[in-house]
């Protein structure tokens, strides 16, 4: 079957090309679509609808320049014009992933954590990094095997880059407990051994509470994360790839894999859609 994915563009969003590319590598038929093409009246001619797609991606970038809080103005815009469509998309059991700015947008829309299916409630926030500055660094991530998240199935650990100034995951203590209890904490910043970073910088690059790097809704079909899986689309994206290649050569291996580990996140989504929306 054709698994159709939509990557939102426009208004300062900027990871659309590589996200689109990653989805295609994972087997999806992906489309980069400007937010205004979904809003009736915003453009001349026919309007696209979310109904046409199975996977909705809120990608990285600086929507509305990140003024007034990262992802805040984008959430306001989407809620205003696409709230009903998004609600239907979720009811239909389709998949949503928010990456970096997209995660910030998801939490401001209330699509995660969505305790008890309340998909409009802002319960968590991604706020300024403790360091006070933007940071670009690769992080090690541990993945909660008990999380219902569709996107991380079969993955136990992962290395990805983070690139943000507002990535500190924050929520009231009771809500943090609840996230952990519900296994909605999908990924956490970790050390080399795969243990939680325990807030240690730069392993935990932003001071996120409980080292939380990504969470999902109770169904596991909506996933938000700060690290960028689409930026690990190729073996050569990894910061140690020249060292790994050299190790492989010395072991007598002639070739190195081409694909980056981030693609599996998208492939899991494609597989899920095939399994659940494909003709029996």
């Amino acid at each position, binding site marked *: 079957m054709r698994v159709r994915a939509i990557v939102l*563009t*426009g*208004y*300062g969003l*900027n*990871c659309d*090309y*590589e*996200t689109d*590319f*990653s989805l295609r590598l994972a087997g999806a038929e992906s489309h980069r679509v*400007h937010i*205004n093409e979904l809003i009736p009246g*915003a*453009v001349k001619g026919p309007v696209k609808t979310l109904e046409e797609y199975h996977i909705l991606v809120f990608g990285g*970038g*600086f929507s*509305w*320049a*990140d*003024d*007034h*809080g990262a992802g*805040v*103005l984008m959430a*306001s*815009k989407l809620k*205003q014009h696409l709230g009903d469509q998004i609600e239907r998309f979720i009811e239909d059991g389709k998949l949503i992933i928010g990456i970096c700015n997209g995660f910030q947008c998801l939490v*401001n829309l209330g699509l995660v954590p969505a305790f008890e299916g309340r998909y409009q409630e*802002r*319960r968590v*926030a991604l*706020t*300024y*990094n*403790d*360091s*006070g*500055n*933007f*940071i*670009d*660094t690769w992080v090690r991530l541990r993945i909660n095997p008990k999380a219902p998240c569709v996107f991380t199935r079969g993955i136990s650990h992962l290395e990805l*880059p983070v*690139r943000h100034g507002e990535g500190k995951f924050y*929520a*009231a203590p009771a809500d943090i407990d609840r996230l952990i209890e519900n296994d909605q904490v999908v990924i956490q910043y970790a050390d080399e051994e795969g243990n939680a970073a325990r807030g240690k910088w730069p392993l935990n690059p932003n*001071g996120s509470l409980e080292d939380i790097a990504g969470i999902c809704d109770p169904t596991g079909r909506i996933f938000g994360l700060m690290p960028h899986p689409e*930026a690990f*689309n*190729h073996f*050569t*994206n990894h*910061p*140690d790839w*020249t*060292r790994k290649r*050299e190790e492989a*050569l*010395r072991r007598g291996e002639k070739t190195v894999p081409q694909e980056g580990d981030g693609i599996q996140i998208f492939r899991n989504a494609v597989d899920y859609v095939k399994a659940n929306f494909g003709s029996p």
Partner: protein
Amino acid sequence: MKNDKAQNLNNTMVARLEIRLKQELKDAEGAGVRRKAREYFGFDVKEIRVIRVLTIDANLTPEQLELVRTEIFTNPVVEESSFSPLAREFDWLIWIGFRPGVRDTAGSTATEAMEDLLGVKLAPGEAVYTSKLYEIRGGLDEFQVRRIAGDLLANDIIQQWKIYPRDHWDDQEGIGFPIPKVVLDHEPTVQTISIKSDDELRRISRQRNLALQDRDIPVIREYFLRQEIQEERKKLGLDLPTDVELEYISQARSDHCNHNTFRGRFRYHDLATGKRETVDNLFKTCIEAPTLKIKEEKDWVVSVLWDNAGVGRFDDGHYYVITGETHNSPSNMEAYGGAITGIVGIYRDPMGTGKGSKLVMGMYGYCVAHRDYSGDLKPHLHPRRLLDGIVEGVRDGGNKSGIPTPYGLLLFDESYLGKCLVFVTALGIMPATIQGESSHRKVTSPGDLIIMCGGRVGKDGIHGVTAASETYSEHTPAGHVQIGDPYTQKKMHDFLLEARDKGLISFITDNGGGGLSSSIGESARFSNGCEVYLDRVPLKYEGLDQWEIWVSESQERMTVAVKPEHLEHFMELSAKHSVESTVIGQYNDSGYLKLDYKGKTCAYVRMDLLQADFPQWEFDAQWLPPEMRGLVEPVIDEPDEHGGLLSSLLSRPNICARNWIARQYDHEVQGGSVIKPLVGAERDVPTDAAVVRPILESNAGIAVSQALNPSYSKIDTYHMTAATIDEAIRKALAVGGDPDHLAGVDNFCWPTIEYHPERNPDGKFKAAQLVRSNWALRDYCLGFGIPLLSGKDSMYIDGNLEGPYGERRKVSGLPTLLFTICSVIKDTRLCVTMDAKFPGDLVYVLGETRNELGGSEYYQMMGSVGLNVPKVDVAEFLPLYRAVHSAIQEGLVASCHAVSRGGLAVHLALVAMAGGVGMEVDLSLVPTAGELSTGQRLYSESCGRFIITVAPENRKRFEELFSESKVGCVGKVTEAPSFVILEAEGKTVVYENIFSLKKAWKGPFGELI
């Protein structure tokens, strides 16, 4: 005034919304200010917390205001907000807001979001303004608080500030209702200018700051006095030249647009030999001619020397585009604003090259005085604050544009105290063909519409220099320093790429220096004429004179030629991307540039006037070779403690780690990162060159490197230039760059070369330095086969700084060349990094070490300049470079690193440190020219050298490749983390722990985030 509402200038209601993080959350921004207050001034502040302020100057109901407060501007999880003052229990309060007319992006996005949520449109003149309050807790006195406000947080040029002590705070009134609205109250008028005599015109030019060149004045007068011209003008109701016309001519003839210095005539006199020669046009002889010659030989050179950027072939389906420039003066005045405007501005050049390219990479180069400068002179901004501002400006400009910034340089030298240098370089990529037509070709044709896209026009950048001396009132726009707006530009970028791919763009160019005057003036040359309606140009605020609209340098604008049949589609796409586009005229073949304002012609100038014979600039250049200027080699006996010396060298500002800059620049966005700015086992040592894959479907990539060696200029700018080109080449080759595809970008920054007996007594020498630098550029580009795809010159890097006794001293920057190399790599999977990989690997030094320590870091450390500057020998170096490339292509190289500033000792140590391994090296095995002392071997900065590590099993094949070259297998990589250097007979010269060395290397700036 009431508590939360007030009457403003237009009698609409004003509200002030204050937002803050909840008390239990760490305020990282406030903590950052606190850290800087300690670092900059040694103030011990207990706590600083920030309150964001939105002054909403619009007619909204209380219900509407409450809706935007809760729905948009307050995050209930982390924030609290109120329409009443929030500040409480502080010792001091600082308010900082923009001056009128300064770009307030957050104010604009707030307006956009409010309009969207409420379904209303703010009336003309209504707006939202942002400002900030800083609550300060701790026992500071007023003087200290003023320093934090004035010397750390606010820059008077673009911002205004106030401080409130606790006991003078009215917690009902708060800060009032600051509305930095521009009110000009001026009826636009065209003025005519008398051309009675040359003197008269010169006088008026000076008075009005027209900046007409003295030499040009007779040519201009002759034109306007010509009978046929006068008759034509009369028909349109014109008589004497208008201010619009003279501004247009002045802009077009400026050094910035016309490169008069590089196109000038130099009378070069070598005082040593007595030889005199005339050098007519450096640009033509040293840049254009070699590049055109190389273009004949290299089929990958697609388009050079005419467009906004040069074009090279990436692969069969794609071209890359590269250019670089500087943004020195504005950054020197307002570091953040100048730098962000610089990086965002350079990104418009590739957008305006050919039919437009997608931006794929940015680079930076900063030259500033030492961060801890404590001398007598008072620069406008202290170097520490200057550098912080520049770093942050490029960070926001690059990151918010969604363009990776994976490479850059930072160089400290006292001579940049007069003016800092901010280099910005941009790379784009475009399909080779668009709708069947070559993407690099573009023309304007009669009938094409002239469309201005992007931002609006204000008083920004008009006569920058003079505006600085104007007195401010509450509502005069602080226009001359701009703050680039990556958000507006990113939307425009996305829009223009879509319009390009649909074949809607006939011609595109950016609005930078000279604004519409230069973008339309130059693009109309293709069709040979144009007519522009200045009253149709969208303005930020009313009251601009016609000439101001024409020359304003307001940012984020492109000028596009669109055929009438494509207009509708073009405007639809513009609306979709939420970009403002306006038809402001059309191109024609009338032979005239005609500007109208409300039906009246205000400029009518023949297109060929600017091709007329304006007199060439002339310079006297006098060269005295270094040995005749008294430069000698210093007398330094052999040091006993090379270990300690190495440690000190590693912690010198121009060698030590400056990783805090790279870490805050997004170098991964677009998903094509191959070689990152920081590499090695701990990912913390700078790479030789960065590599990206701009086309994700392909394994091909682009490698870029840059070099800067102004300290060699003290000896001879010829060799400075050669060494800089050579270093950039080696760095690109070190990661796997292709010696047959080396594209160059030259960025000159030079002190004033016009001789003046009092103001610039060494002008003739500086002119000779420029000539010699260009000669080397010519010789070495030809030698290495480097076409100059792009380049810019920025003169006048001097400053007159106030000293302690009321005197002013001139400080001239060292003659500086930033050279960029760009190479296409067919298979990036073969790239290598500079870190040693495995214990047991062999360490090779390639290329000869000579007695060349002149201008070196070692001599600088010893307080000397020296005489023996490094020299470049193409015939000797190039075969070695080709062999390096073959070795990398064959997969024989585990690591490769170009030796540069600091010499072998520093760079061997960096290779070991990056690998997290030890190294043992026998200095006697290093290939040298003649007998060299230990110090000379360790610290010479000879060009042409690499350090390569190789797996033992590859030794034979590797050495075969270099059988003709001067190469030494000098030692091996070791498991034990010791950095050991031995001499003949096994005497140990250096024995240091690599982690201690790394600690020293990271020492100076390790704390910066």
